């Protein structure tokens, strides 16, 4: 299981390094969205819950791009068949893909967050970096799990570019609520306030529920 997941993760990262199909696109999308937000809400800078909202809207939409791409190579280049022929646990594919999406999101945020701080954010976020990283990690985990599930659902269809976003966005609403509420105290004009623990708990619960669920049902998406 670990051997197979490791091989899959390494394979995906290598393909991504070579082709740059997901992360650069997600990052560019995020930057364009920040610019769009600047004009759409007509603000030079944002703070507090508005900042958290803008940030999470952007990140969630960028994540959807990654979800759509996640399984394309497996479907189009026979990766599913190649994997299914090997004597390994099928859950390895779920673990690997969720990890890859998690890493992609982390990579995007590594560049998108400084860009956000420079372009739009009023208060300096640097004082609250550890809390911010914690919220991002919990939220990314949820996005990765749900995204892998939705990506695998969408890849079964003939219209994955449509199905994945319309499925993923409503599914991520609880996550968006919790992530935005947890982030907004960190981005206040008058200095960061502590993160409300209950929103971290909601994020954790979300990760847990969908993680267990994905473990239970993912195999069925691979059969034929």
């Amino acid at each position, binding site marked *: 299981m670990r051997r*197979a997941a490791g091989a899959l993760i390494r394979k995906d990262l*290598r*393909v991504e390094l070579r082709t740059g199909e997901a992360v650069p696109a997600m990052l560019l999308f995020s930057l364009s969205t920040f610019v769009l937000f600047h004009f759409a809400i007509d603000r030079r800078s944002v703070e507090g819950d508005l900042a958290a909202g803008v940030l999470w809207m952007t990140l969630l939409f960028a994540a959807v791009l990654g979800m759509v791409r996640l399984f394309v190579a497996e479907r189009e*280049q*026979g990766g599913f068949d*190649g994997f299914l*022929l090997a*004597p390994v646990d099928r859950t390895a594919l779920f673990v690997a893909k969720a990890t890859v999406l998690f890493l992609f999101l982390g990579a995007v945020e590594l560049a998108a967050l400084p860009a956000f701080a420079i372009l739009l954010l009023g208060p300096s976020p640097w004082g609250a970096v550890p809390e911010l990283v914690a919220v991002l990690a919990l939220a990314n985990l949820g996005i990765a799990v749900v995204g892998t599930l939705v990506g695998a659902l969408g890849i079964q269809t003939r219209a994955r570019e449509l199905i994945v976003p319309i499925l993923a966005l409503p599914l991520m609403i609880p996550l968006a609520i919790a992530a935005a509420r947890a982030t907004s105290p960190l981005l206040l004009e008058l200095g960061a306030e502590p993160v409300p623990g209950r929103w971290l708990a909601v994020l954790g619960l979300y990760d847990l529920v969908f993680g267990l669920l994905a473990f239970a049902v993912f195999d069925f998406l691979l*059969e*034929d």
Partner: protein
Amino acid sequence: MGAADGAPAVALRDLGRAYGERVALAGVTLELPRGATLAVFGANGAGKTTLLRILATLLRPHAGEAVVLGSALPREGWAVRGRIGLLAHEPLLYRDLSARENLRFHARLHGVAAGRAEALLEAVGMARRAAEPLRSLSRGMTQRVAICRAVLHEPELLLLDEPLANLDPGAAGAVAPLIGRASGAARVLISHDVEQGLAEADLVLGLRGGRPALLAPAAAVGADDVRELYR
């Protein structure tokens, strides 16, 4: 594995599969001993690929029984995975990775040493171009890499869908020890080259509209009997 080792490579009874309301395969009954070769003939859409995918555990049968290497499908599919080599119509390789990376990836999935991948690349004459991404290779070269992938884990049953497609005679000679009779594995071979297919086979299955139209030892089948299937 005890008793399973004495079992035939493939034993089918009334095997059937439908896609929705379209019947792709029905009523296939046969037995293929270990080390023997079954040649499958039939026009496009006759059910050859469906049969191959069922044997590879990628498709579950809807009717009848399929026992592969002593394990009943689909229930015991886990027991035969890793003992079958599938050379499908598509190479099942990542186009953005090189031949070496692809094979090493599959070697890791199958728990095979990386040295085996190198040896195979050498054997099919691909060692020199093993570092190029597959998308820059010709179809014949890709096919050679795909053959390496199929035999990487030394399978006991080889499922071959037109294995020599796009291969020049030299390359065909190079892969013969891997996927030919010399490999020692039982083989299910789909071919459109009637003479060559018959020469390789011990048993011949002809499919028409998903149903067996011909099932006989290869010695008793003439090339014209097979051509009749395509009419």
